[in-house]
């Protein structure tokens, strides 16, 4: 059966809204990463998993925050789980802590075009998370465009960023993915799925 809905949560406060979205969907996945992993112990999430929700979190982000697997909690997975969810779900909703993206109707599968929008200053830790997830998208054969909004412009001006940021940029470029600088947040690029950070 096709995956109807994939929801990315990168802020714990978004959990309730995410659970509202998946509640009446037969085939839904939830992926927690970044600060969103702090919602792993939420009783509402445990109840949803008990009701059949497929929920996974980024083990690396959980480990960085001292969180361990719990009985009845989400599975400790990887960015591969996140990337395949974004690749394969008919509808993708991304709640990273900024704007909420809701992409629907594009053909799922390899080759799907995903735009990762960077809306924050280059040194914001969420930029590193955005770029890490973009590498994951590239790893499951999606076509990635990194959209650099004005607050993140410094990212492309020099290489004096955190090591993981520099590496992710180099990796995406080496793999042939694009970086596009836009003048305003309303400037859209052609894509199937959008994930804003």
């Amino acid at each position, binding site marked *: 059966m096709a995956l109807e809905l994939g929801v990315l949560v990168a802020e714990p406060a978004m959990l309730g809204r995410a659970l509202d979205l998946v509640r009446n969907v037969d085939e839904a996945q939830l992926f927690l990463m970044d600060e969103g992993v702090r919602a792993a112990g939420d009783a509402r999430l445990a109840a949803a998993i008990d009701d059949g929700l497929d929920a996974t979190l980024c083990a690396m982000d959980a480990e960085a925050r001292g969180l361990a697997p719990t009985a009845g909690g989400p599975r400790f997975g990887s960015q591969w789980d996140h990337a395949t969810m974004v690749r394969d779900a008919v509808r993708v909703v991304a709640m990273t802590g900024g704007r909420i993206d809701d992409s629907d109707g594009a053909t799922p599968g*390899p080759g799907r075009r995903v735009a990762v929008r960077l809306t924050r200053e280059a040194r914001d830790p969420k930029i590193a998370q955005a770029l890490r997830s973009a590498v994951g998208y590239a790893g499951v054969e999606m076509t990635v465009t990194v959209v650099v909004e004005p607050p993140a412009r410094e990212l492309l001006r020099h290489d004096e960023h955190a090591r993981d940021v520099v590496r992710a940029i180099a990796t995406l470029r080496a793999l042939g993915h694009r970086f596009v600088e836009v003048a305003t947040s309303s400037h859209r690029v052609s894509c199937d799925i959008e994930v804003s950070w």
Partner: protein
Amino acid sequence: MSDRAPPETLDLSGEVCPYTFVRAKLRLEELPLGAELHILVDHAPAAENVPRSLAAEGQEVVSVAPEGARWRIVAIKRSEPHLMAKRRFDAMKSG
């Protein structure tokens, strides 16, 4: 006597997600079908997640075994990944 080439080893010690699964996939891309690849990881989640991602992409995971502070994942290439059109990945390797 087998004419299969000796297995290659990809040491991913020190690597974390997503570079673990992406680099494993890239290395497999370079190998012929039927080739055996030994992947070493030292991040516990990778010992579970890398084999799962490889299997989901049609590769055969023969074994996953602890080896000191690391894990050795033995995989056989059974399908052609089409990740990067044979592009080399030096930027990622150098970090």
